[in-house]
């Protein structure tokens, strides 16, 4: 069965650079979520989209933005990267009408040097 696809798996950027993370949700899932997870921490919610419209916003810095496209894939854009942005970034998708939980991608490990 198809899962949530994230790319790239690993990304190394320098401070002040820009990064773009991509997410391809499971077909027919109507909601996409972005999370940031530091070492030993629980996932921190960044932003979500429902049917391609932004639905909720969490602790997403102003330097970050995200969008969901007509084909339902989503991108997280991160600018003016800081060392503290180094983390695992997960995308998850779900169907709101069915409480079967979120399906997470394998994540993108971003390292800012």
């Amino acid at each position, binding site marked *: 069965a198809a899962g949530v696809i994230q790319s790239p798996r690993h990304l190394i950027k320098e401070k002040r650079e820009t990064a773009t993370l991509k997410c391809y949700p499971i077909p027919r899932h109507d909601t996409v979520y972005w999370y940031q997870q530091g070492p030993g*921490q629980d996932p921190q919610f960044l932003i979500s989209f429902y049917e391609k419209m932004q639905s909720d916003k969490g602790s997403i810095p102003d330097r970050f933005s995200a969008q969901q496209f007509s084909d339902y894939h989503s991108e997280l854009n991160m600018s003016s990267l800081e060392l503290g942005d180094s983390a695992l970034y*997960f995308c998850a998708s*779900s169907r709101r009408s069915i409480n079967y939980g979120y399906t*997470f991608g*394998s994540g993108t490990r971003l390292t800012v040097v």
Partner: protein
Amino acid sequence: SQKIEQNSEALNIQEGKTATLTCNYTNYSPAYLQWYRQDPGRGPVFLLLIRENEKEKRKERLKVTFDTTLKQSLFHITASQPADSATYLCALDPGGNYQLIWGAGTKLIIKP
């Protein structure tokens, strides 16, 4: 605001025994509560969902209970195996808007 508390200390269990993990929450009871497993460097994997009107839910060797009076959910793994070693996260939707908040997770170590 709603908070979730999970035991931050690692839980060491002998293989074959039952592992029990605890998830406590504050404030009002959510409509449902979920449990996930996370391996290092990987995304959380959904295991079980239990609704507020359900006392218990089972799936193979897994059992989840939900006590809205105690504001607590227990997650049990019976006949534990070393392959069950992972971090287990509890999550709930406080507002009923499909937006989960997460516990920090409990690391479970099953010793052979």
